[in-house]
Each structure stands twice: as C-alpha cells, then as structure tokens.
C-alpha cells in the first residue's frame, strides 16, 4: 500500500524567534541569528559566537511542576509541536490516536541536565544528582513528553544520528504513514547543545568558526552551533482532504545511506548516493528538482564534498537549480537542523521563492554550485533537503509543491 503523504502543520523554535513565521521572516531577509554566546564564562574558549534561542524561555510555556522532568531540548520539541498541531487543526479520536506516530530526532538529548547534574558530582563533590536526571537526559524525552501531552499511542521513538537526526526522523515518519503503519505523524528534531562541556568538546574538534558561518563562501571558517526545534505534522493526503485541512506541501521521498569512509571527513560519493536514493523514492528525476536545501555547514570539508555531490547528481540541470544554505541563519542546530531546514524548504515551495545565503562573501572555486544569494521568486515543483552527519550517515528528503 503506497499512499501520498502531506504536511499540514509546521512549527519552529530557533535563534530567530519562537515560531515558524519569525523563522521564515529571517530566512527571507537573510538575517543571521548568530551572536555572542551568553550564559557561560567564554573566556577560555576559542570561539565566542553561537545561534542561541534567546527568546525561548521554557517557563513561558510550562508550569513549574511540568518542567520538573523536562530538559530544555524536550520543551523545545513540545512547543514547536504545539505550533505545528495548531496550524494543522488536527483533532484525533481515541481510536485515531492509536495510529498516530511520533518520531523525533536529537543528537545530544538532555545535555543541559546531564552537564549540570554531573558537574555537581565532579566539581562540587555533592553526593547525589537530581532524581529526574535520567528522564531529562534521555534522547527520547521530547517524543515521550509529546505522547504524554497528546495521548497519542502509536509508534513513538527517537533517532540519534548527529547532524542527520531530524532528517532520519522525518524520513522514517514519512515511510510509516506512506506504508500504512500510521495515519498521522508528528516528526522533526530538537536540540539544546549549549553547555560548557559541550562547547569545550566542539572547540577541541577544531571545526567551529572563530567568527560566523559562511556556507560555500571562500574563506569560511567553520560551523557555528545553534539550538532550536522544528516539527511537522504529516498525514495521508486522503486524511487531510477528508477533513478539509490546509495542505502546505507534499513529502515525496526519503533516501539514506552510509559513507563507510571516515568518522569526520564527508564523502561526495556517499552524499550523491543518498540524494539519488531520495529522488528514486520520490519517483522524481533530477531535472524536476528546482531547489536544494544544502547541509551547508560552512566547514572546509563539508561544503567542498557537498558541492561535488550536487554537481554530480544535478549535472544536467545546474542552470535551473538554486542551492539554499540556511545554517548561516539558524546555526548548526545538530539534531534539529534538518527539521528547521524542512520548514524553510516547505515555505519556499509554498511561496515559490528562494532565500539568501547569509554571510556569503566570495565564491569558492571548489564550491561551484548555483548558490542562492537573494530572496527572489523561483518557480519550482520539488526541492531536496540534505543532511550529512559526522560518522558518514546521510539522510535526504524530497518535498513537492502541493496542487489539488
């Protein structure tokens, strides 16, 4: 059984604000949410900038009692999901809730709680940690919190594949609904990676830019960490039409694979293979794709390998393609990145436009791709969104403009 799957709600928490409208508005303007990292003594860290979701305060969305078992990353997943559900106006009967799936992505899980709890042991020599440390730090805390809030009882789990987590989650949720294992799904990713220990770990890996994120630009200095959440409501086309829902876009294909190449260096061949698998899954040819939302981390290695993969797959239609790279706007929100990029891709399909690549300075001959540099009308029927994780785990989604 193969069914068409559509998106009827989107939600986003990011450095640009607490909803998808604020996020998309910044995307259109090419406005970067990257700024000085606050909340830590940064004097001993080589980089100073990040894309923190400074407007997001969990206490604005939950009461004190609700917050006891919830890490910041889980509250972000819930608040983004509330926005997506409100937009979709989806209301489920008890029977329908049994066939409603939740698949979330997160790289780290509740790192904020883990870092805080363990530092009381190691640094303050305290004899015990908070009893909710485990429920807060488990990577599935966002998915579990959503099942509790919504009473959904269908398949629910969390995918953790570093920077590809959200794309792997969305892809699996899509396949569940398409293949009849669930009729609706909430899916996306959330991440709150700003802890002192985590910042030191990124510093040690020497991939973080000393200033800002400049995807595909010559002289780019590396990635910049971000935080946030993106969530989508997926349902069958039949379901959405029967209840008169407003359909934002269609999710048409998913492809994944492993580079089997290197723990941190990406492989262009692995990336190209995942893109081709996603296109095949969508029954879509490369020339039907008008936009690629790139992984585009702004590191030396990713952007060169990804450019080669894009040039390989889309060799015949580079002239009618635009590549969009939004991490200069929302930062690299790790397990949430793919979901935020999905929101940007869906909004671009709805408005038939492309958006600027913020912070871009000079073309890099090693990244010879048709990069979008301005907010401009761009008719396109389908778009690809790439995520390539450390460890060589690739996940690519294909979205389609929805027409009745």
């Amino acid at each position, binding site marked *: 059984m193969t069914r068409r799957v559509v998106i009827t709600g989107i939600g986003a928490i990011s450095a640009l604000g607490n909803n998808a409208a604020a996020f998309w508005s910044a995307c259109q303007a090419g406005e970067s949410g990257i700024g000085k990292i606050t909340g830590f003594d940064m004097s001993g860290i*080589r980089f100073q900038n990040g894309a923190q979701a400074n407007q997001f305060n969990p206490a604005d969305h939950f009461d004190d009692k609700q917050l006891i078992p919830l890490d910041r990353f889980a509250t972000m997943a819930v608040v983004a999901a509330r926005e997506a559900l409100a937009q979709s106006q989806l209301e489920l009967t008890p029977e329908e809730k049994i066939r409603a799936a939740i698949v979330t992505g997160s790289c780290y899980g509740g790192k904020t709680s883990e870092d805080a709890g363990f530092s009381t042991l190691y640094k303050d020599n305290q004899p015990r940690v908070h009893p909710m440390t485990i429920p807060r730090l488990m990577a599935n805390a966002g998915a579990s919190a959503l099942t509790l809030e919504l009473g959904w009882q269908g398949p629910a789990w969390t995918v953790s594949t570093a920077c590809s987590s959200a794309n792997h989650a969305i892809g699996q949720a899509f396949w569940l609904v398409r293949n009849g294992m669930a009729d609706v799904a909430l899916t996306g990713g959330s991440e709150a990676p700003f802890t002192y220990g985590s910042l030191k770990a990124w510093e*040690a*890996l*020497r991939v973080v830019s000393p200033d800002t994120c400049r995807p595909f630009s010559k002289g780019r200095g590396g990635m910049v960490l971000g935080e946030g959440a993106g969530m989508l409501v997926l349902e069958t086309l039949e379901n959405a039409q029967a209840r008169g829902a407003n359909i934002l876009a269609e999710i048409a294909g998913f492809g994944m694979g492993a580079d089997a190449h290197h*723990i*941190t*260096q990406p492989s262009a061949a692995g990336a190209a293979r995942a893109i081709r698998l996603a296109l095949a899954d969508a029954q879509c040819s490369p020339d039907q794709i008008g936009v690629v939302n790139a992984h585009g981390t702004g590191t030396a*290695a990713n952007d060169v390998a990804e450019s080669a993969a894009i040039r390989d797959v889309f060799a015949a239609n580079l002239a009618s393609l635009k590549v969009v790279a939004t991490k200069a706007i929302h930062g690299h929100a790790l397990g949430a990145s793919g979901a935020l990029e999905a929101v940007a891709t869906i909004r671009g399909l709805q408005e038939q436009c492309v958006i600027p690549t913020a912070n871009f300075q000079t073309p890099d001959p090693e990244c010879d791709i048709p990069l979008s540099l301005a907010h401009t009308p761009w008719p396109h029927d389908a778009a690809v969104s790439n995520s390539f994780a450390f460890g060589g785990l690739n996940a690519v989604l294909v979205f389609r403009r929805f027409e009745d």
Partner: protein
Amino acid sequence: MSESVSPDVLDRVMRTLAETQKLSADKVTPDSTFEQLGIDSLDGINILFALENEFNINIPDESARLVRDVRQLAEGVQKLLNEKPAAS
C-alpha cells in the same frame, strides 16, 4: 614561521607525535611530512590535543591549519612556548 627550536622541544614533539600515532619513535624524524606519516585531519586534531597537554599551551586553529611537517610543528610549539609568560 622559522623559530629556532631547542633540541628538547623537538624531541618532545617527535615523541608526543609518535605516541599519539602509535608509531615507533625511529619512524619520526624532523623532516617527516604528515603525508609520509599517514596523518590525516583527524589525527592532526589528536596530535594538537596531545601537544597542548604535553607543553601546557593553547594552539590556535588558524596557525595549526598551515602545518604540514614535523619541523613546522616543532617551530609552532617553540613559538607558543616563547610567547608564554615566564612561569611564576
């Protein structure tokens, strides 16, 4: 970068590199290039980490990126040691 490198610093750099890379010490000479020693970017990060601990220095990303052989590495370490305030 052409600091004159003390024999002690050069020796400790070579020993740290050999230990990090699990190479026998006689494989590493001042003229060995990273390419000859099979050192990739991830190995390089591990070597910088070991050198920071060995010499109690902080090696900036931008200067580390340009280093291609053992002598340049030792010169970079020597430069950072020379810039370090005298131990109190």
